[in-house]
């Protein structure tokens, strides 16, 4: 299992992401933003930070980098992609994930530990040609992970949000009362319809060592690794 962690000018969490990838299993290397060649890489992480200074809009310029063009092809071929914080913003700007991340409701940079719920998803047989998913109302897996961002308010039109919920694409929600930014329906992370592209605002790569209080972040990387393990 070989991980590729993108590095843009302005990225700042790529080293922690590399560390988390190796803890989750496998080798990891940085992929410079001008690289196009992802040969041999089994999973991609688009890390946090402020790519290209976040000028114009967070993630808006990074999306046009050669590495991101390669990631779009990688994702289209079913390769697993994890976007964290700025990486989530980049994936939304690139159209690989639905929605957008807006300025936090209270306009302050937020930096604190948040509790997340990963809703259990029951996928049922296709019905009338549509995939039918139902979220387990009894809850799901709980994770404690730090969040640190100024533009993390997830937003999408209501009909898109309804679709995400119906198809089980809401990957993480802030636990009740934990929403740090005013995100729609407490959404902290979403996946694409195929399920191979995942983005979330909180930082699982900062929660992989008991020294810093929680190792729940490893589970996020392990889930991506499971999807990307060579057959």
């Amino acid at each position, binding site marked *: 299992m070989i991980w590729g962690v993108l590095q843009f000018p302005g990225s700042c969490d790529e080293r922690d992401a590399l560390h988390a990838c190796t803890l989750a299993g496998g080798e990891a290397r940085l992929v410079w933003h001008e690289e196009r060649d992802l040969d041999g890489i089994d999973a991609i992480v688009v890390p946090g930070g402020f790519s290209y200074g976040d000028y*114009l809009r967070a993630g*808006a310029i990074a999306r046009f980098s050669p590495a991101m063009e390669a990631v779009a092809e990688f994702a289209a071929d079913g390769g697993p992609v994890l976007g964290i914080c700025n990486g989530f913003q980049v994936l939304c*700007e690139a159209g690989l994930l639905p929605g957008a991340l*807006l*300025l*936090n*409701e*209270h306009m302050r940079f937020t930096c604190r530990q948040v509790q997340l719920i990963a809703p259990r998803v029951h996928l049922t047989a296709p019905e009338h040609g549509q995939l039918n998913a139902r979220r387990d109302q009894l809850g799901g897996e709980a994770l404690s992970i730090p969040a640190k961002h100024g533009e993390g308010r997830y*937003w*999408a039109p209501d009909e898109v949000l309804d679709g995400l919920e119906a198809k089980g694409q809401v990957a993480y929600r802030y636990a009740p009362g934990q929403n740090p930014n005013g995100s729609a329906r407490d959404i902290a992370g979403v996946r694409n319809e195929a399920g191979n592209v995942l983005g979330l605002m909180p930082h699982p790569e900062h929660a992989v060592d008991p020294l810093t209080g929680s190792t729940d972040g490893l589970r996020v990387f392990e889930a991506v690794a499971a999807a990307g393990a060579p057959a």
Partner: protein
Amino acid sequence: MAKARVLIRPKEGILDPQGKAVERALPALGFEGIEHVHVGRMVELEAEDPERLAELCEKLLANPLIEDYEIQTL
């Protein structure tokens, strides 16, 4: 080269905390009776082919999901 100005603003119905903060600050400065404040961006540019500006806005200058844009050729 044609000079142009692109105005980008948050779409109606999407919470605009910057606009809200400005609006809330106004009464303290003695500006009463001002409402519906929205804060956006303005981009000034010169273009060889102004016909392509809409495409430029859709692709980069604005995120059409969350923002409206208006092109003013000068």
